[in-house]
């Protein structure tokens, strides 16, 4: 029996929530923009009125203003987006327990088990759409199909506030003529490769020889051919499914460019405070560290190294990250953003082979020190104790963002 999968996409989510919360914005071109002073001055989302002027997500605020001089730019309210995202999932939960989020505003729902009681997939999708409008004042686009890839494709086909059905019997007629880049799994880089072979549509992709694409794209090549043929069998994850944590990272764009290694050290130290804390909370240790450096011309490079001994100590991770930076970055240009990631995580309780040439005692001591710092922070707050170098005003670390964001990182396979 074929599955019935819904993909629900909340239309212009950030901008819609802003218009919901401020009636005076309705009917005007509105965009949600990042903070210019913190150098996040780009369009994060826009409403349909702004879209008519050609305003695009990701472009600089001044560019958007040039296209639409009456554009109203509002700052983001992440706590509100989280609230509405949670309320939407509560509505989905009335139809199934298989709800897999893909970012804050999109979800897959497997309603195969509910159709006997609640009607066809299309009927359920329409009911959810109506409830979203009535209960939250927001519109969604829904795609209904027999797999996740086509359900997602369907929700993108008709917007806003619409349901698109793609059945097993008619999918070739409906979607094979669409550009290959419309399909999930075909990003800009893959599209370029496909174009070089003269593959432009989903239909052309479906008929391509797997060997040919495997040579250029590896496993992904075979995967996207299967997707184009409707052979995506990936399940919709259960609502309480927690994806395994593969890495813990933290990055910032600093308000001013970093000009020297001392400034980079301060940022890395500040970033790893949170990383160490999260590793402890998740009960993990890192086997390596990865750094990502973006220079003032926006090009970025990534380096990584393995540790001799696994650790969750903030100071050890910071030091290793900085060493890696010192030997890798040539200082051709000042630095705009820094990301540090603890990688190859393993369970903290996992036994480990000791290394004769590494000072394990020192690492152990640093971890105990971090544990003590952690317990002081638990009792007296995050800033009750911190490295002296971060106490001064000369650090270029931007102020905290209170809300933790989860961006789409991929679907459950």
């Amino acid at each position, binding site marked *: 029996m074929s599955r019935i999968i819904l993909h629900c996409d909340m239309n212009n989510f950030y901008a819609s929530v802003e218009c*919901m919360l401020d*009636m005076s914005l309705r009917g005007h071109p509105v965009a949600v923009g990042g903070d210019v002073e913190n150098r996040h001055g780009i369009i994060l989302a826009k409403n349909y009125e702004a879209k008519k002027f050609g305003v695009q997500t990701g472009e600089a605020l001044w560019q958007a203003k040039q296209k639409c001089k009456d554009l109203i730019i509002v700052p983001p309210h992440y706590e509100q987006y989280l609230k509405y995202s949670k309320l939407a999932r509560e509505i989905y939960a009335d139809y199934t327990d298989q709800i897999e989020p893909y970012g804050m505003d999109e979800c897959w729902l497997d309603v195969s088990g509910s159709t006997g009681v609640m009607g066809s997939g299309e009927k359920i999708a329409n009911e959810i759409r109506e409830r979203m409008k009535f*209960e939250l*004042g927001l519109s969604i686009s829904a795609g209904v199909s027999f797999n996740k890839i086509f359900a997602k494709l369907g929700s993108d086909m008709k917007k806003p506030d619409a349901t698109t059905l793609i059945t097993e019997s008619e999918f070739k007629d409906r979607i094979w003529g669409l550009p290959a880049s419309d399909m999930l799994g075909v990003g800009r880089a893959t599209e370029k490769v496909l174009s070089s072979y003269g593959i432009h549509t989903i239909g052309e992709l479906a008929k391509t020889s797997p060997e040919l694409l495997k040579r250029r794209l590896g496993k992904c090549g075979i995967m996207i051919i299967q997707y184009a043929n409707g052979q995506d069998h990936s399940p919709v994850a259960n609502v309480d499914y927690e994806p395994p944590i593969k890495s813990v990272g933290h990055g910032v764009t600093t308000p001013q460019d970093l000009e020297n290694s001392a400034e980079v050290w301060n940022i890395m130290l500040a970033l790893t405070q949170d990383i160490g804390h999260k590793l402890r909370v998740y009960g993990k240790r890192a086997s390596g560290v990865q750094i990502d450096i973006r220079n003032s011309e926006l090009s970025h490079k990534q380096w990584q190294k393995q540790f001799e001994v696994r650790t969750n100590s903030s100071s050890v991770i910071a030091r290793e990250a900085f060493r890696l930076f010192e030997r890798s970055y040539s200082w051709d240009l000042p630095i705009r953003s820094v990301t540090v990631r603890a990688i190859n995580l393993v369970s903290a309780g996992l036994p480990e082979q000791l290394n004769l040439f590494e000072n394990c005692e020192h690492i152990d001591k640093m971890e105990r020190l971090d544990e003590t710092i952690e317990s002081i922070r638990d009792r007296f707050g995050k800033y009750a104790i911190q490295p002296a170098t971060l106490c001064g005003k000369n650090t270029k670390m931007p102020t905290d963002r209170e809300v933790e964001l989860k961006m789409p990182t991929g679907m459950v396979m």
Partner: protein
Amino acid sequence: MEQNFKKVYVGVELEVSPEGKVRPVSITYVDGITYEVDRVRQVTRAHATKVVGTGIRYSIVVKGKDTFLFEDEGKWFVEGHAEN
């Protein structure tokens, strides 16, 4: 004539049944006047259409007039006339 509305947070006296069912008994407006809730017609989740916000919407009757009372994250509001 188009009527303007504004979101007005109000104090609410509640009656809670042993099963945990909540029923508003009276509303105390910003000016301190308390209005008895004669009847609760319907309880549903809905967004306010005249002002901004969403929540659990109580369709209530106060002094013979139908109106809505909303509860959102522990705070209660009504769609009040802008001149109030």
